[in-house]
């Protein structure tokens, strides 16, 4: 015979039954719908799947166990127990906590893919490409509507100048991974120096496309180095492990691959400074070597010595001229005296021979002078070209010409004087003797010596630039104000002449 009971008894018995059945402390997955939150803090909603539904309640104290606010449409896994509400006899699922469904699966998938690709060697450091130091073209794979691309553009503005090419892609949701792969491939075909694959922060599901295998493989297959910049600094994705470089954030990516512009400028300038300093020290040591060779290339030394030599040449020709005239006069007298004792034919013949010899001497002297001056000018042309900066080098030809003409003048002056001696001798019709020959020879050789001395000088046409030098009344070159006194008469030698001056005032440098 069947048992008879009240409704309340039935409900209580079912409630007890459920406690002992396998419907307590279980995970139920479904989608939330019709959720209502009451002032008490309790939530009432329906959990459903495609073929069924169950009423559910989440009490305020249980809400504290959860990390997210439940909303309609959320796919969740709810932990709790089935229970009966005795007042209505309806059964409901009492939720103690909930998590978004699929998350656990995603973590498992993430770890599985990570270890598989790692095993395969996709993350090996040895496989990673080097970042270009100075990329001129940067490719970016990201959403064209997000903040990320603008952050990258802004951050790179003051850095090493590079063009930015955006290959727009989806960065979340179904199909996003494929558009990321397409972007990487497109930029490889298009030609850039480095590719940034970027996305802003988000949940694990939001970032999921960057955890997909096809993205990892596209990054590895890329010929162009790839930088990943996905999510926040604490988020790691498979793309991060596959990329050649991981940037903590999209903004960080631009800063990582582009050096600060002013830093690069100062690098270049400091290298140039090093070059300049080295060059200066090379040219200094070259000057030292020249000095060691006894060839001081200082302006005043060159000038003084040159003018002294020129004067010596002048003086020498003057003196030899006088000496020769004297000798020739004496010789002439002797010839006259002797001529009576000699046949005129023989005298003439002898004369001709001797004057020919003198002519030969004088032209030898002129030739020697000429070749010495050529050697000097070409040697100085060369060394000056080495020491002088480029600007002055172009000026050198003019100076060399001026030098040539100066040396020409000296040579022709000397030759003239020699000739004059010849002429006089011939005119006198005297008989040259051994002494005269000796003097002529000495003259020629002093000319040679004097001009050889010119070789040691840098004959830049310094005087024409407005320099002069000063000699004392005794003819000594003055190099210091200390050797002058008030009232002294001095001679100022310029390019084209000289002037006598009186020292009016004198002041010494401290």
């Amino acid at each position: 015979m069947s048992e008879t009971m009240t409704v309340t008894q039935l409900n209580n018995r079912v409630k007890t039954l459920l406690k002992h059945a396998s419907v307590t402390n279980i995970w139920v997955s479904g989608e939330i719908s019709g959720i209502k939150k009451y002032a008490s803090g309790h939530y009432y909603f329906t959990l459903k799947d495609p073929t069924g539904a169950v009423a559910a309640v989440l009490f305020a104290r249980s809400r504290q166990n959860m990390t997210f606010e439940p909303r309609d449409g959320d796919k969740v896994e709810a932990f709790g127990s089935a229970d009966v509400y005795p007042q209505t006899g309806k059964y409901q699922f009492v939720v103690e906590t909930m998590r978004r469904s699929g998350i656990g699966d995603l973590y498992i998938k993430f770890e599985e893919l990570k270890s598989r690709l790692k095993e395969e060697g996709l993350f090996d450091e040895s496989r990673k490409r080097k970042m270009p130091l100075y990329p001129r073209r940067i490719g970016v794979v990201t959403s064209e509507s997000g903040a990320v691309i603008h952050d990258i553009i802004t951050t790179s503005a003051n850095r090493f100048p590079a063009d930015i090419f955006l290959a727009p892609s989806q960065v979340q949701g179904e199909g996003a991974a494929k558009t990321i792969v397409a972007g990487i491939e497109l930029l490889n075909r298009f030609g850039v120096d480095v590719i940034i694959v970027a996305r802003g922060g988000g949940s694990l599901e939001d970032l999921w496309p960057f955890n997909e295998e096809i993205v990892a493989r596209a990054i590895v297959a890329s010929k162009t180095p790839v930088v990943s910049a996905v999510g926040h600094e604490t988020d790691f994705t498979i793309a991060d492990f596959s990329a050649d470089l991981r940037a903590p954030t999209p903004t960080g990516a631009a800063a990582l691959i582009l050096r600060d512009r002013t830093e690069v400028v100062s690098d270049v300038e400091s290298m140039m400074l090093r070059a300049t300093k080295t060059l200066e020290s090379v040219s200094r040591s070259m000057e030292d070597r020249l000095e060691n060779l006894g060839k001081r290339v200082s302006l005043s030394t060159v000038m003084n010595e040159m003018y002294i030599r020129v004067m010596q040449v002048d003086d020498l020709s003057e003196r030899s001229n006088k000496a020769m005239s004297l000798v020739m006069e004496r010789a002439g007298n002797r010839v006259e005296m002797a001529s009576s004792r000699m046949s005129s034919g023989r005298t003439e013949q002898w004369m001709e021979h001797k004057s020919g010899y003198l002519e030969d001497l004088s032209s030898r002297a002129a030739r020697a002078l000429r070749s010495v001056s050529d050697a000097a000018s070409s040697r100085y042309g060369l060394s000056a070209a080495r020491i002088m900066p480029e600007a002055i080098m172009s000026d050198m030809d003019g100076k060399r010409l001026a030098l040539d003409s100066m040396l020409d003048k000296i040579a022709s002056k000397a030759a003239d004087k020699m000739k004059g001696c010849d002429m006089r001798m011939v005119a006198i019709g005297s008989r040259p003797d051994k002494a005269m020959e000796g003097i002529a020879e000495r003259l020629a050789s002093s000319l040679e010596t004097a001009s050889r001395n010119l070789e040691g000088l840098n004959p830049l046409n310094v005087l024409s630039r407005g320099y002069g030098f000063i000699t004392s009344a005794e003819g000594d070159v003055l190099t210091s104000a200390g050797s002058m006194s008030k009232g002294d008469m001095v001679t100022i030698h310029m390019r084209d002449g000289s002037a006598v001056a009186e020292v009016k005032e004198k002041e010494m440098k401290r």
Partner: protein
Amino acid sequence: MNEEESARFAEEVGKMSFEESIQQLESLVEKLEAGGTDLDQSLEIYEKAVILRNHCKKVLDDGQRRIKKILETSSGVVETDFE
């Protein structure tokens, strides 16, 4: 270097990437610093360094960077201004 040589070198440098030119600049400076070059060679190295430096400066001073969006279309890759 005479004018022709330095023009030829400048042309060569014009084709270099920034990285290449800064590397060459660096190695020239190191060669110069290492010593063993006479004044002629030193001058030539220095002239080359100046040309390389000017090339680098030109790149660095160029404020005109391009920001483009690229899309694959049936008629190839199309560039459009971005922003």
